[in-house]
């Protein structure tokens, strides 16, 4: 019998349904409906209509708890686009099971099976240890979490002392990696050659598509600390030239990683740090695509956050990435001058997309926010930038208002800038003014 996730869910429903009648069960329905309108901030020949995205979306949450030990959560997502980035401004409709996960738990263990989003890492926005989830950056939304993509996976958590220990062991097997979808600036698109923009969806349960990871976490009163290992795939696609077909194709490279994170409070501050050492299979010398794809690198985020006057918060994070064995694309050489030129161009495009244009890449994020449960207004300013040998940045101010319970209106801007040969500067034409109306029920 062929394996099929829908069949697994159907089986889970059947099991849940049979238990339902005998125990203290509950069923919860909920969801959200939201519309997003993204307009270009600057006039751009790429978006003649002036609209980057016009969409109406709905999430339907269904949760059933057949017994004290079991539960099932399904979140279905429906998106109707009048225009969006990934469909070349065509109207389209899509639907998917965002999450569909069955949970079984005892005092000390928790087993989750199904389509799930597993976000790792304690930093804000930039997470070197976020090995298992992905994001669709072509789906524009003020809430970064909406962009997050899950995958079919099995996760087992074990906490000794009947769940009362501060130490937890986690093991994860993902049936296929989720694919991060980037906005690809025109400057990265090659001309005069067949080019596939986005990779095909990976097949499940293949040696080169499955992912494995483990984490040991100490979650204490005053300190959280974790160490993690990962073997899987880089969810960001990179490009390579296939000489036989004369095509530039995307690929998701297998990689291994070790990392960790921590957070603690120090007086008025919450301190967070996260770091990972990531070793792509093609990231070292003597591998065929060395120099063209992202090399082995060490990624670190250290930051602190504090509140002011109760309702205001400020946060700063320092980002640092160091590429081990980095080579400048201009140093790539092959026996053929034409091929050398092509390979150098592809290496530059990959470096632009994955932000590895330099051996050492320092950056920072800054967030200043106002949020109060007792007020109907909130505001947030987020800035991320990289600043060695030229700079590039994204500035995202937004203001939210809750006119009634469940409703929220948000207006803001995504403003990319800086050197246009850098990852964020290259997206200047994607700068936008946005509005979102959302109802949660």
């Amino acid at each position, binding site marked *: 019998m062929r394996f099929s996730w829908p069949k697994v869910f159907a089986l889970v429903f059947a099991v849940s349904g049979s238990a339902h009648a005998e125990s203290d069960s509950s069923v919860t329905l*909920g969801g959200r409906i939201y519309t997003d309108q993204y307009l270009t901030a600057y006039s751009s020949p790429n978006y003649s209509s002036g609209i980057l995205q016009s969409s109406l979306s709905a999430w339907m949450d269904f949760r059933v708890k057949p017994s004290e030990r079991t539960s099932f959560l399904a979140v279905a997502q429906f998106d109707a686009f009048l225009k969006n980035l990934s469909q070349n401004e065509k109207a389209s409709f899509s639907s998917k099971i965002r999450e569909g996960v069955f949970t079984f738990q005892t005092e000390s263990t928790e087993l989750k099976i199904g389509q799930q989003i597993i976000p790792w890492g304690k930093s804000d926005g930039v997470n070197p240890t976020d090995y298992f989830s992905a994001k669709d950056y072509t789906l524009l939304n003020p809430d970064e979490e909406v962009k997050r993509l899950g995958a079919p996976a099995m996760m087992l958590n074990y906490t000794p002392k009947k*769940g009362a220990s*501060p130490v937890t062991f986690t093991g994860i097997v993902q049936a296929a990696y989720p694919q991060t979808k980037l906005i690809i600036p025109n400057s990265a698109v090659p001309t005069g050659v067949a080019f596939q923009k986005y990779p095909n969806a990976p097949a499940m349960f293949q040696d080169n598509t499955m992912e494995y990871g483990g984490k040991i976490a100490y979650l204490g009163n005053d300190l959280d600390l974790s160490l993690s290992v990962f073997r899987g795939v880089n969810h960001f696609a990179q490009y390579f030239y296939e000489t036989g077909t004369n095509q530039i194709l995307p690929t998701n490279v297998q990689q291994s990683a070790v990392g960790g994170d921590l957070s603690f409070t120090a007086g008025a501050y919450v301190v967070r740090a996260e770091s990972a050492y990531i070793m792509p299979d093609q990231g070292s010398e003597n591998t065929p695509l060395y120099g063209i794809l992202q090399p082995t690198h060490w990624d670190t985020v250290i930051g602190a956050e504090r509140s002011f006057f109760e309702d205001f918060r400020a946060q700063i994070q320092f980002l640092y990435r160091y590429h081990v064995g980095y080579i400048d694309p201009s140093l790539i050489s092959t026996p053929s001058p034409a091929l050398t030129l092509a390979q150098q161009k592809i290496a530059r495009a990959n470096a632009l997309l994955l932000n590895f244009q330099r051996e050492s890449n320092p950056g920072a994020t800054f967030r200043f926010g106002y949020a109060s449960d007792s007020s109907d207004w909130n505001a947030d300013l987020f800035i991320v930038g990289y600043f060695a040998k030229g700079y590039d940045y994204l500035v995202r101010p937004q203001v939210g208002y809750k006119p009634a319970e469940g409703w929220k209106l948000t207006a803001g801007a995504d403003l990319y800038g800086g050197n246009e040969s850098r990852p964020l500067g290259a997206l200047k034409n994607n700068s936008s003014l946005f509005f979102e109306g959302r109802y949660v029920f």
Partner: protein
Amino acid sequence: MNKNLIVLLGTLITTTSFAAISPREIMVKNEEARKVSDFEARAKLATGSGSNIKTKEFTLSRKVQKDGIHNNTLTRFHSPAEVRDEGILILENDNGKNDVMLYLPNFKKIRRVESQQQSGSFMGSVFSYSDIATPHVDDFQYKTIGTEKCPGNQKLICTKIECTPASNEVLERTGYSKSIVWTRPDNFMIEKAEYFQLDGKLWKILTASEIKEVDTKNHKWLAHSLSIVNQLNQEKTDLIFSNVKVNTGLADSIFTQQNLQKVR
């Protein structure tokens, strides 16, 4: 002897015996009177006035730690939809500082709440995070400042006790320069409290009602209805407990970060 005289004599006897003990001893008895091994209740938090009242519903679970003094508290929100599944874990420490952790289901992550922020609003209410945690005898110094008819029962004479933070940690956590509490003579429960800002201005007034004996064997009490008013803007929050269950043997594993991020 008529009925009024019996009440008067009773009150006098109670007041006399109550006055003989120190304010600290009264507060020790107060802590004893409200201390149960564990309790779990459904809670409704209503903030605002008139037609503009915002209500949040949650389950509150609390268990005394192994030291027999400090508590661990977990709140899990059920409604409105915007806060569904959010959870707050409060772990009290003996150094005067509490650890507060907030679970945000949208991010599937836990965020620590720094101590300075713990005097801030608890889920948009007039209560603060530190109000939701429990006060302890050693956290404060006490002074009796008089007696008064109890606000909720005029036949009883309450003792008014001024409580000042015993350490900077408690001052930072609570955000109160002092508080004045009205303690009942019969069960030592607090019927009213006034909380003062760091500059000495009156900030909040709390009134407790529906004080019921929840453990009749060990004489433990719980105020099922709490009302707090911010005197600076007259905003009011009512916190009402229902389905109260005590000493049911809640597991220690409920009060962990691991459990905080388990949404069922």
